[in-house]
């Protein structure tokens, strides 16, 4: 895609040489991990296409929208209420944070022992490698952990950062705080776009994003079948793409893929004969963080569910569509987002219940808890998760890693040993 988009990337002030090598590495990585799979669904061709155009066609669409006066808002967290963005006719996109690219640049302004995700988004910006962030009129940060909280202060020297305060408990006072934050965000989006959010527009946005969640819920129900009809890697990719593709188009394409999947389930066709069913739980995996799922699915196992922000945490709950006026709609949004069981909350018993329920419903043999190195909330919570799973009869192994490839052999040993143990 290089030739076609070079002028656009140059206008976006990307480092063209470094960006070209990033795309080359990404392409090769994608080929090894995705294209090598046998018997994939036809519907995955759309995902292959979207990914091959990740920095091309989609960025061009964003540029065209901006030329027509629409604003682009970038986010790093499932807490940012998308409905408000779309209701103001702006576009929300998830930002680059899943590769080691730009680490050296990031370490100039961040401590070395910072989690890979934070280092990655700062690095992408400093090394001028992410056309998404260069297309943003506003970047929304949030206070889900101390690392991110402080990084956004530094990051605001380089990008138009707006920070939302995420409550850390779920009492009435916290809900009130969150409602105030949602209203403050609504105002900020209205100021940015020059459009006021009406009840009608907000309801349309709620339905739009609910439809996408429903499509992903349907996908999750279908993949739960025996035998598993789609690889965990493919579903992870679908979840990752859901953050930056146009929601309407994406929903339609995923519904089509689900139709195909439904036929496959009816015919009893599996994608990984004899593979051990496992579930992933823990930190999010941004594109192209496919290392662990790939290792798992090369070790005689298949991932049948992700308890993660890039997974069920982002799709499980819908916004109530029955509200009749603007305030009720906003309350419905507040309530829906307060159900998110991020490890930043204390206490966070819902997350443990959800993990155990998922493990039961998906009928898994075990759970792999994934933590990014230096991500304290998830590392701490993994002890409680293991205990809850153990009591429910599910073995768990905790794996902590980052985006580098240097520990691949050790991870393989652990994952293989876990698969041998639960088989």
């Amino acid at each position, binding site marked *: 895609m290089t030739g076609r988009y070079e002028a656009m990337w140059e206008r976006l002030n990307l480092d063209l040489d470094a960006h070209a090598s990033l795309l080359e590495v990404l392409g090769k990585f994608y080929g090894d991990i995705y294209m090598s799979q046998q018997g994939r669904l036809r519907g995955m061709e759309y995902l292959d296409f979207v990914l091959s155009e990740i920095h091309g066609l989609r960025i061009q669409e964003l540029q065209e929208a901006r030329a027509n006066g629409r604003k682009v808002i970038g986010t790093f967290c499932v807490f940012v209420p998308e409905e408000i963005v779309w209701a103001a006719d702006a576009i929300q996109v998830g930002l680059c944070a899943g590769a080691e690219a730009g680490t050296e640049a990031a370490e100039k302004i961040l401590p070395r022992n910072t989690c890979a995700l934070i280092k990655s988004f700062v690095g992408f910006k400093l090394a001028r490698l992410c056309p998404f962030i260069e297309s943003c009129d506003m970047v929304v940060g949030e206070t889900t952990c101390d690392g991110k909280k402080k990084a956004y202060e530094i990051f605001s020297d380089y990008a138009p950062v707006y920070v939302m305060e995420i409550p850390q408990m779920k009492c009435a006072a916290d809900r009130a705080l969150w409602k105030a934050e949602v209203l403050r965000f609504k105002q900020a989006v209205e100021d940015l776009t020059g459009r006021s959010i009406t009840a009608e527009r907000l309801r349309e946005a709620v339905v739009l994003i609910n439809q996408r969640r429903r499509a992903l819920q349907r996908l999750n129900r279908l993949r739960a079948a025996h035998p598993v009809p789609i690889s965990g890697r493919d579903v992870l990719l679908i979840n990752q793409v859901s953050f930056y593709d146009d929601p309407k188009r994406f929903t339609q394409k995923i519904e089509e893929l689900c139709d195909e999947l439904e036929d496959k389930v009816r015919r009893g066709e599996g994608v990984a004969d004899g593979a051990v069913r496992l579930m992933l739980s823990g930190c999010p995996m941004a594109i192209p963080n496919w290392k662990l799922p790939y290792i798992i699915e090369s070790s005689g196992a298949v991932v049948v569910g992700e308890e993660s922000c890039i997974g069920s945490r982002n799709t499980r709950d819908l916004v109530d569509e029955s509200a009749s006026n603007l305030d009720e709609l906003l309350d419905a949004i507040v309530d829906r987002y307060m159900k998110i069981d991020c490890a930043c909350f204390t206490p966070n018993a819902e997350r443990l219940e959800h993990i155990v329920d998922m493990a039961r419903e998906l009928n898994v043999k075990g759970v792999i808890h994934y933590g990014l190195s230096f991500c304290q909330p998830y590392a701490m919570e993994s002890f409680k998760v293991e205990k809850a799973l153990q009591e429910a009869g599910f073995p768990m192994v905790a794996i902590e890693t980052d985006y580098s490839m240097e520990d691949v052999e*050790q991870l393989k040993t*652990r994952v293989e*040993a876990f698969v*041998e143990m639960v088989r």
Partner: protein
Amino acid sequence: MAIIGLDVGSRSIERVVLEESSGKWTWEKAPTTFDPLAQCRRLLAHVDGCSVVVTGYGRRLVAEQFPHLCARTVTEIQAYARGVHHLYPQARTVLDIGGQDTKVIALSAHGSVAKFEMNDRCAAGTGKFLEFMASSLQVPLEAFGHFALQADKQVEINSMCTVFAESEATSLMARGERPQNIAMALHRAVVRRTLAMLRRVGGASPLVFAGGVAHNPCVCRLLSESLGEAMIVAENPDVIGALGAALIGASG
């Protein structure tokens, strides 16, 4: 029929030949060197009509490079669990400190793996740590444990990071501390780390100590001071992986 178990570790390669009918086995050990494939080629010469099971870091490499053997691979976790259960059926926990990794494995009453822990990618607490420290004190690795046992005074090394522990050792040397005392402090650091892993797995006794570092008399003494009677040092601690692999091959 004979079954071969091969454990391709970071420092040494062990081969066990197990006679399926009699259960008798023999073993051989070779250093890994920088050309492990050549070592494996030697250890696997004349192997024909046998089934081969490979474990250890080089397991996949061997399986790929000797396709005619149709070798099966198992992880060190499974291999050590099986090997220990065979030799010490009463064992409920396996501690395996190898060249590159430390593993703690909790065994069920039937000898299957119930839970395991492995050190993360850093070398803290592994054989590599001792090897590195022995060379910085200019003591041969094989003699390092005996050397540490000549300590006459307790000094502390607190860091478990290989690099920081070395700078602590350097500061102690600069203060004129006897190298034997420093060596002892380094051994205690390894044992502290190991005990923390054991506590996490909640290993029941008896515990069998296996892997190359079980040859180190100082680590053995310090561990048994903490664990008491409940610890058994495996008789041939580095053969257990290869034996376990062969036994897994024999049971199909």
